[in-house]
């Protein structure tokens, strides 16, 4: 986890002292706790595939894993260009991990552009593996290198550099299979993968199985990929270039059955689970947008779970179809990202005044406007908190990791249905595309949302009163098809009780108050805020959303150095947990790191009048643990 603990143990095994028993014994094997690898290359180089395969074999082996794909916004940027670089980072560990890692231990760069855009993240002393065949004049030019950096000793002096002629070796390996040069070259990601499999003592069997199932119909491609994989492995094994390789023992994860989930997959499964357990149907209206589209893709496959999906003509139709479906009694959901949520605002306001349950997932990305579609940010908090006309309060909750999306999606459904309100669930590009092991839960004992559609009129002979409320200020979810409960909803202000259109000034005041008080009622239904670390002390660091892992790790690292630093991670942002104000008061200082310009910071200051400090980063990249630790020290010393 922390870099200082990485290079531990068993350093000096007998090197070349005894006669060679097995060939592996010729190379030193070091045990390390945690490793961060990044594969990067052209967007057509198969880096996501290589990264995913490495993740799978590590997970199957028993490591804790966390991944962060990083791909360009362009579908196919020109080959070799700086903006066409695609990367996949993963961290695997024998301990618990909470982030895909900070600094990179091993960087695999398939061309000059990949090297140029990623080298800064490689730690000093880290391993750099490059495909030296790709460092030709043309590629160097596209990457704006004046000269070949591989020839420049000083440029790469801080790293353990391995120049590997991957293109040539891959071509040699697949020779005789009748592949075109182009087809042969496409196998070089498997060569790179094989090499790092050797480097980290990974068992390549799961990948071989995958290749067989994937390319079964194309025997020559299948064989080529297997040969490239093996060639990469053997290259590490036999060449003089590599003298050390590493093992990362299995982690001590809680026993049980696991699978890997991305945030978007977990959101989809959480929604389906909530609907299924509530014995109701799920309606999903969506419009494709990065990085939220996979929620639509996942749900579209799951019709047998009672899911109806609707790919709308635009974001506005997506949200308004959800309004219609919610009126009809479906568990209605949409997901989008910032630009789409902005378009959805009016429809969401309609949902709020009509007090219909619906879930709106905002998978945040860099903004404003189209911003950085494939990069992560947390800057839609204001949009979700305030971004509608009128006083229009609605609950905002946020998932903290890919696996947490499963629980939070169900929680969003619970709040929506039990309190008859639209609910925002915030995730982000980092959570949505990132993956982590998920302990497969037992269905028995999961919370079942109770859906109630009344069948009897509540009007005591005066007709159905759609806005007559219970003790939680919740109105009944009567649905079309129910005789005697015919009623009209709409965007005009309602008369409390009857739901008739009302311009009465006192009624508007009252209804505005009720809509706000509903949030207070929701606060009574959510857990108290917990704190990681001591109950009181010098510093409380507050985080929300996808920065959970980095902030948790940084706070833990600070505590290990004897500092009084507690961590409070918010999953409920509107309403806040009822005890949050009291929690804040127990610490001398409060620091709020966010991947925006301080949005939670402003809300916390406004709510609690605490002189919290903001830490803001908007680079389209997650926080590094190191930079958080530095900021913690700075605040403690100030």
């Amino acid at each position, binding site marked *: 986890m922390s870099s200082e603990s990485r290079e531990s143990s068993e350093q000096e095994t007998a090197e070349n002292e005894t006669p060679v028993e097995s060939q592996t014994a010729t190379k030193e094997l070091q045990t390390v706790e945690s490793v961060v690898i990044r594969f990067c290359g052209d967007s057509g180089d198969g880096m996501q595939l290589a990264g995913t395969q490495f993740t799978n074999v590590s997970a199957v082996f028993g490591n804790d894993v966390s991944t962060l794909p990083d791909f360009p916004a362009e579908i196919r940027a020109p080959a070799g260009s700086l903006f066409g670089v695609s990367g996949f980072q993963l961290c695997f560990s024998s301990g618990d991990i909470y982030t895909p890692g900070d600094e990179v231990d091993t960087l695999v760069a398939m061309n000059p552009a990949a090297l140029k855009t990623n080298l800064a993240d490689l730690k000093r002393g880290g391993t750099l593996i490059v495909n030296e065949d790709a460092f030709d004049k043309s590629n160097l030019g596209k990457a704006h290198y004046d000269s070949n950096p591989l020839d420049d000793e000083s440029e790469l002096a801080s790293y353990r550099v391995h120049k590997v002629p991957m293109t040539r070796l891959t071509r040699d390996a697949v020779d005789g299979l009748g592949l075109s040069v182009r087809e042969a070259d496409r196998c070089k990601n498997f060569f790179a993968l094989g090499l790092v499999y050797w480097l980290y003592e990974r068992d390549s069997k799961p990948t071989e199985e995958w290749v067989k199932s994937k390319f079964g119909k194309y025997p020559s491609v299948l064989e080529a990929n297997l040969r490239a994989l093996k060639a990469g492995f053997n290259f590490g094994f036999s060449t003089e270039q590599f003298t050390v390789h590493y093992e990362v023992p299995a982690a001590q994860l*809680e026993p049980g*059955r696991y699978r890997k989930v991305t945030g978007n997959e977990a959101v989809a499964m959480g929604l389906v689970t909530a609907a299924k357990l509530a014995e109701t149907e799920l309606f999903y209206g969506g419009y494709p947008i990065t990085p939220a589209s996979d929620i639509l893709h996942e749900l579209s496959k799951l019709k047998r779970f009672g899911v109806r999906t*609707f790919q709308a003509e635009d974001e506005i139709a997506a949200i308004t179809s959800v309004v219609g*479906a919610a009126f009809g009694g479906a568990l209605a959901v949409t997901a989008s990202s910032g630009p789409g949520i902005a378009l959805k605002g009016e429809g969401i306001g309609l949902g709020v005044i009509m007090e219909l349950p619906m879930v709106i997932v905002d998978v945040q990305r860099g903004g404003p406007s189209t911003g950085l579609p494939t990069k992560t940010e947390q800057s839609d908090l204001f949009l979700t908190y305030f971004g509608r006309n009128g006083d229009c309060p609605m609950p905002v909750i946020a998932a903290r990791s890919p696996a947490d999306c499963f629980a939070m999606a169900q929680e969003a459904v619970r709040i929506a249905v039990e309190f008859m309100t639209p609910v925002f669930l915030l995730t982000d590009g980092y959570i949505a595309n990132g993956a982590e092991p998920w302990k497969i839960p037992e*269905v028995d004992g999961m919370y079942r949302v109770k859906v109630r559609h009344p069948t009897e009129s509540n009007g005591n002979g005066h007709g159905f009163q759609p806005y007559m409320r219970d003790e939680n200020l919740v109105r009944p979810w009567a649905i079309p098809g129910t005789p*005697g*409960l015919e009623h009209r909803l709409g965007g005009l202000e309602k008369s409390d009780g009857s739901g008739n259109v009302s311009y009465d000034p006192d009624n508007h005041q009252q209804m505005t108050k009720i809509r706000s008080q509903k949030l207070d009622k929701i606060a009574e239904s959510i857990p108290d805020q917990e704190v990681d670390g001591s109950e009181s002390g010098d510093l409380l660091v507050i985080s929300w959303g996808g920065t959970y892992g980095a902030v948790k790790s940084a706070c833990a690292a600070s505590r290990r150095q004897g500092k009084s630093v507690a961590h409070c991670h918010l999953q409920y942002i509107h309403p806040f947990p009822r005890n949050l104000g009291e929690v804040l008061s127990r610490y001398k200082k409060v620091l709020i790191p966010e991947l925006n310009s301080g949005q939670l910071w402003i809300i916390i200051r406004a709510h609690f009048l605490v002189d919290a400090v903001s830490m803001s980063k908007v680079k389209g990249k997650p926080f590094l643990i190191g930079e958080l630790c530095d900021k913690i020290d700075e605040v403690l010393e100030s």
Partner: protein
Amino acid sequence: MSADTSLPVLTQKDFASDQEIRWCPRCGDYSILAQMKKVLPTLGIPRENIVFVSGIGCSSRFPYYMSTYGMHSIHGRAPAIATGLKVARPELTVFVITGDGDALSIGGNHLMHALRRNVDLKIIMFNNQIYGLTKGQYSPTSPLGKKTKSTPFGSVDRPLNPLSIAIGAGATFVARSADVDIKHLTSVLERAAAHKGSAFVEVYQDCNVFNSGAFEFATKKDQKEENCIYLEHGKPLIYGKARDKGVRIDGAGNPDIVNLSDVKEDDLLFHDETTDDPTHAFRLAQMRWPDSPEPMGVFRAIERPTYDGEVDRQFKDCIASQGSGDLDKLFNSGDTWEVKAKS
């Protein structure tokens, strides 16, 4: 409210809500509301299974005046809301009430997509060629040169032809009527309600405050027979008070107004609302008064699978072929691995 029985016999009154109607005196909307209340009891659909969804505008207050389920929503979005409702609850009968501004300006996109998908919706568009609720700006159907508050020197916007739009989008039912043409309107609404698929009905509606008399040509007693052709399936296009004029297609494929004294009836254009080829309906939609007589009635009524029906079919097929979803199986799908307890 009347008590519902298992076999309710509903009347016009059963569909009136207790809300005070707040349209301007003599507004054309009253007539459309009245004809709708007349038509609904004839459909044999329980009141609770009928939903009216509207957008924003004078016409869109309509749902408040009906004792069915209803929603007065936001500007232009009624077709999308209705689509969501109909997909979620295909068994409901869903009407969309909208105006020319609501449907064709702010909501043009949703209208087009509801029609091309053939969602089983009855879309009734009240066209008064003006923005009434916002007090008198020109609308997307206002004629060129129209002087309004926002076009004091005359509008330079070319108007949309709503029926051409509907036919172009692939609507399976397209019709036109006028607010005060009571019998005609009733029959068109009945036909629309009976249609399986998206029905688009344009109703000429008089805004007597901001655009009075815009449709006199099609509503005034002595004028409408001379200015309009009342379409009948399988019949030739004949019109005129004395039924002495007709339409045939000339060599270039264009409508040609002829006197019946000069032409045999068999040479006239015969109306076929069921032809799959939209050319015929489109040609009729292009015939606009005062350049030519204007067709009224059902332009097109064809059968195609509905969107909501197809979604429902896939939904049920998946459950039938794959079995009802099993959460345990879902959670355990993909690559899974076991972490064993340390001994």
